[in-house]
């Protein structure tokens, strides 16, 4: 009986192809919008998470200056006391639960090889930096301890720098000029691509901190200290330990605030991921409104359909159809119609999301749960908005209905 009714309603959808299509359009657009929004949204969330884990997971970044408050980082009234070698030494000596501790100072500097030049992010650091950031070498070797200590003119370069200067060639052993100093390339970093904020992570040059301080920065400051937690230690546990050690070495009395800040990259990742999730939800909700409009379209056309087929309803009632038969017939018809719209909408939505993921370089992340939900929801819309017209048909008086022209 139900199958019969479904077949019947598909038949009536086919009989009025154009009208059925126009009816479906509302649902199609609504569902497509929801699916596209949610799929693109979850792709963006994944992208953001991946980007931030590229910056380093389980990573604490210590910088000088007061922690960022609601009004932005630091206070203007405060003289910023930079981080120094002894802060680093204290952490290395006393901090437990860290996998790697590494200093870093960074500057955008013009790098020259032959007649080519490139503005690159030059970082002065030590050999633990690669471990702390979870970066790997494609070829060559990291700085040796003696190179780090003495500040020898050696460097590691990123893929972008290599392509700019050497094309596909081997850069090892070549000498490049960084600002007014020169350094020998001893290794090539693994390509990491762009961050979600459009920053090229491969346009980098790493050199020993001592060399950077002496030849580029012209001071003994350390801008930041990277502390990577080991596998057993959550960053939330590591953070207060780092704070204690630094307050101690920097002789900050208990009545005063920190003059440095510690950023937990994991927390930042979580915060950003939840922000994109919220955004996705909001966009999805807006798209959901168009589904409502689509539902009203279904109701409209079902009312027309009932009026148009009054005589048919009369015939069916006369030869013994019960109210419920007529009700079910039109309900099923509305449901089939909107389900059909839902399925077409899902396909279009996924296609749009696929296109967006290609152009925006985000992962294509269709969610089976969202798709199932869209199918269920479009069926529900058919039932809800089809009910009133169906009831109207079922309540018709067979005599009046048969007389209807």
């Amino acid at each position, binding site marked *: 009986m139900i199958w019969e009714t479904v077949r019947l309603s598909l038949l009536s959808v086919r009989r009025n192809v154009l009208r059925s299509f126009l009816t479906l359009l509302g649902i199609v657009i609504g569902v497509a919008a929801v699916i596209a929004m949610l799929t693109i949204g979850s792709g963006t969330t994944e992208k953001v998470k991946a980007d931030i884990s590229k910056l380093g997971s389980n990573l604490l970044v210590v910088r000088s200056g007061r922690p960022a408050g609601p009004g932005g980082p630091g206070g203007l009234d405060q003289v910023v006391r930079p981080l120094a070698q002894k802060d680093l030494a204290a952490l290395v000596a006393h901090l437990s639960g860290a996998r790697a501790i590494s200093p870093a100072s960074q500057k955008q500097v013009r790098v020259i090889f032959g007649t080519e030049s490139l503005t690159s992010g030059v970082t002065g650091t030590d050999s633990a930096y690669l471990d702390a950031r979870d970066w790997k070498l494609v070829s060559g070797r990291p700085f040796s301890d003696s190179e780090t200590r003495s500040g020898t003119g050696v460097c590691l370069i990123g893929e972008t720098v290599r392509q700019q200067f050497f094309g596909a060639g081997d850069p090892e052993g070549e000498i490049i000029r960084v600002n007014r100093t020169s350094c020998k390339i001893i290794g090539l970093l693994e390509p990491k691509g762009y961050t979600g904020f459009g920053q090229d992570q491969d346009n980098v040059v790493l050199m020993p901190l001592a060399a950077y301080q002496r030849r580029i920065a012209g001071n003994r400051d350390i801008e930041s200290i990277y502390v990577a937690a080991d596998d057993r230690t959550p960053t939330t546990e590591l953070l207060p330990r780092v704070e204690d050690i630094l307050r101690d070495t920097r002789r900050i009395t208990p009545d005063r605030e920190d003059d440095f800040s510690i950023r937990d990259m994991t927390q930042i990742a979580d915060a950003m991921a939840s922000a994109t999730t919220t955004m996705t939800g909001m966009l999805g909700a807006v798209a959901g409104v168009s589904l409502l409009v689509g539902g009203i379209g279904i109701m409209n056309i079902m009312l027309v359909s009932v009026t148009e087929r009054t005589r048919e309803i009369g015939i069916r009632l006369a030869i013994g159809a*019960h109210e419920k038969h007529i009700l079910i017939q039109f309900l099923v018809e509305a449901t089939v119609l909107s389900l059909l719209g839902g399925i077409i909408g899902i396909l279009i939505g996924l296609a749009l999301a696929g296109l967006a993921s290609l152009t925006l370089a985000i992962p294509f992340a269709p969610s089976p749960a969202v798709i199932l939900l869209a199918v269920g929801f479009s069926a529900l819309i058919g039932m809800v908005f089809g009910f009133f017209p169906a009831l109207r048909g079922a309540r018709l008086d067979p005599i009046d209905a048969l007389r209807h022209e």
Partner: protein
Amino acid sequence: MAAGATLITFDKVWKSYGQGEATVHALAGVDLAIRSGEFVAIMGPSGSGKSTAMNIIGCLDTPTAGTYSFMGIDAGRLDRNRRAMLRNLYVGFVFQGYNLLPRTTAVENVELPLIYRGVAARERHDLAMKALAEVGLVGREHHTPAELSGGQQQRVAIARAIVTRPTLLVADEPTGNLDTARTHEIMELLTRLNTELGLTIAMVTHEADVAAYAERTIRFLDGHVASDTVNLEMVSP
């Protein structure tokens, strides 16, 4: 139901529309009885109450006052769905305008009442094909109404009415849209169904030569039965 037993009884049946001063009595205390196996023609000018009487006979409508009994059941007091069930089980309908579902094949049209009876698809199809053969439409089973002549469409409608093996066939001007030759064919078919299947037929008509096929003629006038006569000069097919 044995032939000759009373199938339909009107006991002081009233049907009124409107209220107060504006009340119109379509039927004003009609008494009537039709026996099983009879072929009755119902005549009368428009507004005489014959259509109202037919609707009540077919269990489509209920009297305002009085009793309508069908097969001994007080059908006038039944609710919508019970009357629908009664129609589905015991009554077949043939209309002037055929009332077939458009864009639906003949066999599918004939299957329709069986769907509401819950008959399985295969059996439904077989019964429908048999009914179409009975009305002489072999070879046209898969034509839609638009592909059939008026006479053929009315045959499909008759097949739909008899496919459930009803006790009563209600025909509302079944030849009203047909030419003389087609009218003759349809009336012969109805007469044959009446004699061969013992089908009770109640038929509304305007035309005396159509009424002549019936064995009895009831004339309505102003909501009353004006005359109720046995046709001595019945047309014998």
